[in-house]
């Protein structure tokens, strides 16, 4: 005898099949509804997935737009001053008398540049040599001690650097160093700002350099060493040359960090609006200008606008520096991988 198996679903429309399947499942008690991917829950899950995706996309785009928004807001706020003076006359004159409506940014820009350049000159060789030592020469046991120290250096708040500068660097310059060169200095000088800032950017430079140097493939080193080069020659001709674009990008990144540093520099620089002529003159960098005058600016017309222009200048320079150097660093990361 032949048993003819008849599929219970045959001859039904799609919808009927679906309903039939659902009803079968209801009968079987071993499976709970949610275990079936085709249950009505799945539509909710997919919907949830989609909605969450949209929300997260919105959040991400909003954060990206925030950068643009900050720039735009600062620009809008600094527009009023452009109606009276041209940008060139603002950044090329050096008289700062808000009460009379004279806003010359030159001393502040010069102060910022002096301090930043000085910090870079002091920090760069130390950072390069330290990073080379840590990647090329040192044993793991040395790293175990130096890395936490670098972490601490990177984590210390800038106000602590400022206190340290006041306690140690300022008296040292005023009592020991300056008398050799000039008659009298308070110690609150461009040099003090440069030293403190230099130490502050050290950990950033070192960590960027270490990342770069350890990305160079080991084969390059082996090839150089097997040709009879010493380790230093390998470092000099292979590693430094190979990572030169990255080193430049790291320097630009450190410079933009130094440009914006406020409290520590403000504490040791002396804050006198003048064009510094030597390392032992006081200076007055842009961020310190903003920080010192924010409270009182609302009473004088155009004062707020002038300070916002200072913030806008800082913003533009830092964003351009950061974006360009990051793009270079991304490329390098991609190349070595």
């Amino acid at each position, binding site marked *: 005898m032949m048993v003819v198996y008849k599929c219970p679903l045959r001859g039904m429309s799609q919808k009927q099949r679906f309903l039939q399947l659902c009803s079968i499942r209801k009968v079987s008690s071993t499976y709970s509804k949610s275990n079936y*991917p085709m249950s009505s829950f799945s539509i909710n*899950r*997919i919907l949830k997935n989609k909605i*969450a*995706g949209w929300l*997260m*996309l919105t*959040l*991400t785009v909003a*954060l*990206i737009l925030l*950068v643009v928004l*900050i720039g735009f*807001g*600062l620009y809008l706020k600094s527009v009023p001053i452009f109606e009276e003076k041209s940008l060139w006359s603002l950044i090329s004159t050096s008289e700062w008398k808000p009460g009379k409506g004279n806003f010359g940014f030159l001393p502040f820009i010069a102060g910022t540049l002096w301090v930043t350049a000085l910090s870079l000159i002091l920090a760069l060789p*130390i*950072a390069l*040599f*330290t990073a*080379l*030592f*840590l990647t090329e*020469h040192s044993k793991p046991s*040395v790293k175990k001690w130096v890395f*936490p*120290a*670098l*972490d*601490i*250096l990177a*984590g*210390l*708040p*800038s*106000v602590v*650097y400022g*206190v*340290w500068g006041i*306690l*140690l660097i300022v008296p040292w310059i005023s009592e020991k160093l300056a008398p050799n060169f000039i008659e009298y200095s308070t110690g609150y000088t461009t040099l003090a700002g440069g030293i403190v800032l230099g130490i502050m950017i050290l950990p950033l430079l070192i960590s960027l350099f270490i990342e770069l140097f350890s990305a160079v493939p080991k084969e390059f080193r082996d090839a150089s060493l097997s040709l009879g080069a*010493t380790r*230093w020659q390998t*470092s*000099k001709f292979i590693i430094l040359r190979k990572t030169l674009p990255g080193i430049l990008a790291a320097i630009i990144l450190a410079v933009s*960090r130094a440009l*914006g540093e*406020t*409290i520590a520099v403000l504490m040791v620089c002396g804050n006198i609006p003048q064009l510094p002529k030597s390392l032992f003159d006081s200076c007055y960098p842009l961020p310190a200008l*903003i*920080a010192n005058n*924010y409270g009182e600016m609302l009473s004088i017309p155009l004062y707020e606008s002038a300070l916002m222009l200072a*913030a806008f200048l800082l*913003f533009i320079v*830092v*964003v351009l*520096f*950061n*974006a360009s150097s990051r*793009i270079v660093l*991304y490329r390098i990361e991609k190349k070595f991988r």
Partner: protein
Amino acid sequence: MKIKFLEEKLAKLLMLLSTLLVVAFVVNILYTILQRGLPALNWDMVSKIPEGGYFNGGGGGVLNAIMGSLYIVLGSTIIGLLISIPVVFYLNVYLTKKSKLAYIARLAFDVMFGIPSIVYGAFAFTIMIYMGMRTSLGGGILVITLLIIPIFIRSMDEVAKQLPRDLLDATYALGATKLETIKVVLRQIAPGIATATLLSIGRAIGDAAGVMFTAGFTDSIPTSLSQPAATLPLSVFFQLSSPSADVQDRAYASALILTLIVLAISLAGRFITNHFSKNKIE
């Protein structure tokens, strides 16, 4: 002896010296702060708010600043986490490796990371004026949140990038939607979240320029979001600008408190990266 060996010796010496110099700086900074701060540090400093005439040598302590800093750090860390975890998840799970949006977003966060806190402060201050807000705890939290979001996102992203693709594929194969993989992803990047949080707290507690105009300064502990709040770095700064030597000593003690907090956070970070990775698949 060949000149290249001499050069090698010299270079090695220079490297050793500069490394020692860096370590010496760290030791020196910590020692100086400790040496000047410790004599002025007492229980009153951390348990009392400033009494009348504190900045001319009156009694009291910096509890207002400690609590203010704590509130700001707590608020901004929580908001920062709530904003940055979804973003990191989106960048790494929803978007592919080659996505243009992901590239632009990472670049934007790196740029945000570089923007000085004084610029954030200035921007937030103009917004606060526009909205008619006064310097307040809420404003301080706002600025610090802006400041630490890029730190959160970038340091979590570094960990999330290492996420094994197979793991995601395995969860998809089990029928999970992209959103549902978050349960797996979060366990994987848990150590990353922890270190990112500690990094952000360290940066948040030490920032002075951003909170200067937004959180303001006060002698009392804030009880609502609309009241001004003192912060530890600003407290150090203001005490240091006092002419009285007593008050300056207190500034050193406050700086010591701040340094100790930051050191504790840094140590905790090391501990967590070493011991928090139990769910992690390499």
